[in-house]
């Protein structure tokens, strides 16, 4: 790992940078988020519900004295809810200058991807969740879906989070 997230992939090709992605599982599919936006990964801890919170908010947790809002990622992605188990993790991320937690089924690894290895996702679909995907990449015979965390919530929703 280098001090920065990206390194020059080859001397002759400065454009083809290598990016690191933290991968997690949701509904048996593998998603990746930019490692620079990940602060830490927590085992599941009790999430305190917040009355009147938006439907995509599971609740809040106390992270070393700081209150962190946890997002229901499955709901946000339009997936059916699932029970919490030993693999369930809360990934603490920073996006849009806010620190939030996202609940995922499990966290797998950190992978390195060249920018050239990332394909665009098909630009179809009008659902809001379609915007979350910034690209896909083939890796170990599996398709890795790369998530744009900044688009996980709309501007209004990010604003709404600050008022919880």
């Amino acid at each position, binding site marked *: 790992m280098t001090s920065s997230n990206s390194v020059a992939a080859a001397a002759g090709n400065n454009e083809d940078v290598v990016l690191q992605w933290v991968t997690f599982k949701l509904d048996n599919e593998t998603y990746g988020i930019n490692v620079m936006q990940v602060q830490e990964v927590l085992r599941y801890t009790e999430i305190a519900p917040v009355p009147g919170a938006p439907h995509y908010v599971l609740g809040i947790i106390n992270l070393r004295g700081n209150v962190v809002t946890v997002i229901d990622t499955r709901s946000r992605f339009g997936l059916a809810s699932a029970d919490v188990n030993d693999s369930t993790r809360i990934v603490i991320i920073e996006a849009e200058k806010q620190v939030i937690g996202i609940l995922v089924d499990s966290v797998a690894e950190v992978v390195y991807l060249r920018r050239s290895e990332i394909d665009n996702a*098909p630009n179809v679909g009008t659902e809001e969740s379609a915007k979350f995907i910034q690209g896909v990449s083939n890796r170990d015979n599996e398709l890795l879906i790369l998530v744009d965390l900044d688009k996980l919530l709309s501007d209004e929703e990010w604003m709404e989070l600050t008022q919880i």
Partner: protein
Amino acid sequence: MSKLVDDAVCDYFSLLLSEPVNQQSASKNSLTLATLNIDELTRKTDEKLTRQSLEELFANSARNKQQPEYEVVQAIKSDIVVASDSQIPSEADVDTSQINTSHSASTSINEQAMIVAEVTSEKQSHTSVSQEGDLVSTQTLLERLDEEFQVLFFKVAGLTLAVPLVSLGGIINLEKLTPLIGRPKWYMGAQQHRGSQLNVVDTCAWVMPEKYTNALAEQVTYQYVVALENSQWGLSCEALVDTITVKKSEVNWRNHAGKRPWLAGVVKKQMCGILNVDALIQMLSAGLGYQDTIPEQPR
């Protein structure tokens, strides 16, 4: 020529509506007993299920019918038999398969009738494709095709579609699909192919969404992906039927985009839609549905 097609289509469906039960049997010597039973039951059920819709579709059809083109009728019936046969794993499953097959076949006939009806109603002069208002991509397709060209027939939910081989990117076994969140219902998922992703379309859901019920979806067993040219799109299909050589004159080309820009025309003999792959790729890439129109491009 186009009138003959009208007549042939009309005759086919008229025959379907009025044909006695014991009239067809001649060309099915090679089929198994189980398949014959299914075929007969399928036909009986089809007659019941499709009678009303077909009568509506062809209520205003030409009255001066000629003798039925038995060859066309047999070709289409054979298609249905092939679909039935492929869906029956064993004799033990016959009862269930009969019901499933009947549903699937009747759906396909209705859809096929819709396609044919649209083509026949929209065409005015099927060879004058350079008229104003023509689909640019249809013209492009015609320019790419030789006078004789090959097409691949494939089936989905009993519906047969044709794709010109010049527009065929490849045929791939349907393997693990990765669904992507927020995509339309017809987007099955992405499959890896040659180190890249191939976006697989649920063909039935895209081509005939109004008929794609949960019950039908359960019956459809996709096996292959028909890759479209060099795009990242592929159509799922249940079975590959055949590859044949057809002449341009044997296709009833559409002059106008109409409601289905993706449909280049109808192969007269087989009475199945031939795909305008360029338009289809455009539509899929834009996330359009099967009846949406492609935004006009500056000429």
